[in-house]
């Protein structure tokens, strides 16, 4: 018996996978959040070294997730890859630039004769930690607010502004999501420090700092979510693919997909509970609640961006060039071949979890930093 798998099913399947990767990426950007704190949070060099090392043992997970997110988007929705990367050139280049300097900074910062000096590599970490989440958040906001591009009949992109993507930062709505992602990364970074470093002074300061980051996060996040629910959105007629502007589109999407709404609300509750419990109690487990909450909330946002007849990459200058999961996807054959490969993802997650636990079983201590065993 052969099971018939439709193109539509596979497009939705791959949109979910891309969304899951994106949501894990946002959680894993606790590494970036931690990097953005290295000049303000620690009281001395040793504390800074501990933060850098705590993040340094996880940076590759985040980096690899970003690379796989890009790869999976290319594979499953190549027209998005071609359109966004080839058009919003400067935004993506800025993001990439910040990740290139991160990759070397950990390994090089404390090595003798590194030419640029430790301070420069720490600045690299700070730049990546601040700019990475801010720009990724801003770029993702254009999934809801639209970009200025048009496609010709051969599906080749032409960007309609001379800013090639940088114009996204001129919209406060886009920036609001960017800042929300940045402050969420910092919150997750603080929670991760509290969870993984055994140093009273540092964790005490982290708990205090949590409040100062939670307030701006809430302001930007609520602004973005409320404006999203009240704004017009880009609806795509399922049968014809014709894109139109629809009032309250994203609110409609939440109402049409109650499960997604529940995921979103559960995510928000998780984020807030993790923050609140860490501020008001002595727990070190806030990261698991806020982390899981971040994953769920981002997943829900991606699902309302792509499902229920919505254009996930709308064009505000030429509506009919807008991308949906149907008109931008790979062929049935390719999506199916990739689906078989995706069946190993649970296995990948399992070994990642196992390895993660094996390396970070115990909380990091000052003594460990002095042991000389591969310290960043």
């Amino acid at each position: 018996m052969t099971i018939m798998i439709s193109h539509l099913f596979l497009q939705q399947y791959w949109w979910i996978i891309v969304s899951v990767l994106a949501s894990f990426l946002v959680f894993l950007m606790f590494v970036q959040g931690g990097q953005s704190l290295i000049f303000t949070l620690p009281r001395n060099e040793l504390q800074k070294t501990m933060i850098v090392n705590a993040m340094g043992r996880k940076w590759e997970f985040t980096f690899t997730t970003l690379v796989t997110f890009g790869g999976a988007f290319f594979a499953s929705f190549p027209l998005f890859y071609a359109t966004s990367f080839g058009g919003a050139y400067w935004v993506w280049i800025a993001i990439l630039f910040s990740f290139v300097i991160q990759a070397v900074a950990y390994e090089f910062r404390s090595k003798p004769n590194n030419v640029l000096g430790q301070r420069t590599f720490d600045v690299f970490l700070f730049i990546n930690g601040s700019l990475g989440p801010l720009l990724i958040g801003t770029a993702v906001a254009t999934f809801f607010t639209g970009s200025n591009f048009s496609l010709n009949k051969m599906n080749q992109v032409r960007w309609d502004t001379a800013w090639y993507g940088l114009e996204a930062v001129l919209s406060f709505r886009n920036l609001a999501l960017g800042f929300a992602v940045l402050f969420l990364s910092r919150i997750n970074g603080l929670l991760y420090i509290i969870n993984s470093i055994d140093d009273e002074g540092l964790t005490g300061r982290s708990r205090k700092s949590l409040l100062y980051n939670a307030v701006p996060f809430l302001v930007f996040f609520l602004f973005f979510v409320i404006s999203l629910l009240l704004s017009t959105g880009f609806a795509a007629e399922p049968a014809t693919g014709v894109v139109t502007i629809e009032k309250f589109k994203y609110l409609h999407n939440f109402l049409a997909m109650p499960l997604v709404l529940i995921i979103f609300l559960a995510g928000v509750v998780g984020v807030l509970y993790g923050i609140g419990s860490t501020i008001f109690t002595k727990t070190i487990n806030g990261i698991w609640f806020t982390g899981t909450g971040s994953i769920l909330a981002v997943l829900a946002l991606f699902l309302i961006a792509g499902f229920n007849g919505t254009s996930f990459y709308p064009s505000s200058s030429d509506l009919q060039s807008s991308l949906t999961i149907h008109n931008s996807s790979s062929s049935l054959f390719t999506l199916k071949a990739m689906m078989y490969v995706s069946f190993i993802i649970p296995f990948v997650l399992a070994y990642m979890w196992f390895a993660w636990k094996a390396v970070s079983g115990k909380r990091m201590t000052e003594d460990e930093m002095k042991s000389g065993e591969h310290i960043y």
Partner: protein
Amino acid sequence: MIENVDLALVDWSRAQFALTAIYHWIFVPLTLGLSFILAIMETIYVKTGNEEWRSHMKFWMTLFGINFAIGVATGIILEFEFGTNWSNYSWFVGDIFGAPLAIEGILAFFLESTFIAVMFFGWNKVSKRFHLLSTWLVAIGSNLSALWILVANGWMQNPVGMTFNPETARNEMVSFWAVLFNQAAVDKFLHTLSSSYLLASMFVLSISAWFLLRRRHELMAKRSILVAGVFGLLSAFMTAYTGDESARTVAKVQPVKFAAMEALADGKNNAGLVAFGILKKSEDKIGERTMPEFVFKIEIPGLLSVLTSGNNEAYVAGIKDHINGNPSKGILSVPDKVQRGKFALGVLTDYKRARMIDDKVQIETIKGIFNEKEFQQGYFRYFGYSAVKNPEDVIPNVPVSFYSFHLMVILGFAFIFLFAMALYYLFRGTMEKNRWFLWIALLSLPLPYIASQLGWVLAEMGRQPWIIQDLMHVNQGVSQITTGSVFTTFILFAVLFTVLLISEISIMVRQIKTGPKH
């Protein structure tokens, strides 16, 4: 497809991609090979329980880590540059190219990045055997990472396993296995991997030779030479074998590149293999392009014919045969191919027009044409030729192709002797006495790097003007952004990569001078 191509934009986009690829490839081969050398050394440590082997392994692991970081940094740019700078190409091939890339992410990158954390930080946290397994998985993961991107590159040299869909204006995969086991991809994978093992072995051999010259850490140096010598010698043989296979495949699927790398302007029977030669400009022209001729050459008569066809009388087609055509050998001329490419483009344009006016009969008729094997094989396969202005434009740079190929081959054979001599002196116990050999081993360090880069210069510049052989002209693949933007990012990346390279080398040299810590 693109009406007004800005050639400066194409050139700067190519320059940026080449810059990133060249820098990336300085680091990657060492990662690929050294990861196995680490795994072998750690295996010996676990088997023998000898702590010295662990110390040897950890010394090389430190160098591995420094090199790995910068390889990762340059790699992410490459992945995204397909989109940022070659967006039209990305769409045209996304359905084929994307799948290997996604599989690479899921299968290989996570394997590599997860277990590298265990390899570096797990020494006192996990069992010996689990640590050893992690080191092997890092090696396997990094090598698997190379598989998928090389499959994609193989497809660009020899596109197979797909059909063109006029509706979406792109190539769509119809056979995953044809793409995976594409001869060009298999050759590329094996040749790239074996040459990377060779490079890493030379890295270990050269640095060990330096230790012996300085009379420091002699035990580690000799043991490292033993591992690198055996691994390097096997890899050097494998590199020569896979290189020969690759050249045969090029002769079949990219005959103009093959003729260029042999600097064979005129086809001939009983063609000789030029082992070494020096070229100069000649009076001989194809269109506006001047063909070079040999000032001097060492030639083995008939061997090229034997290698390509197994018969020393066989005809080997030259560049002129491929430009002007040679009906007796079944070779179409470039003008013929241009005509066929333009015809295919016309059919596609008709399809788009029919779509616009919703002419259902015409749409179905043209879809039928696209499904015909004769159209796909006889016309659409020359689609890229629709962008060719002058027939001679399809000739890649002959001196670049010739010299990069021949220098690479000469170096390839030299490495076999070098590793064999290293093992000979090691087993005779006369390594330290032959200081001249230690100096040669030390000074040879840049050579495999040069050979490896030359291989890519040949593969990529030899494919020009195609971004996908015969199917897409490089001018058709580029993103429509401003030349100024690409020029600016080129400068930014050039400065950044260069600074990082200087920093990396400086750190590396210092770590080597310091030697093993335990």
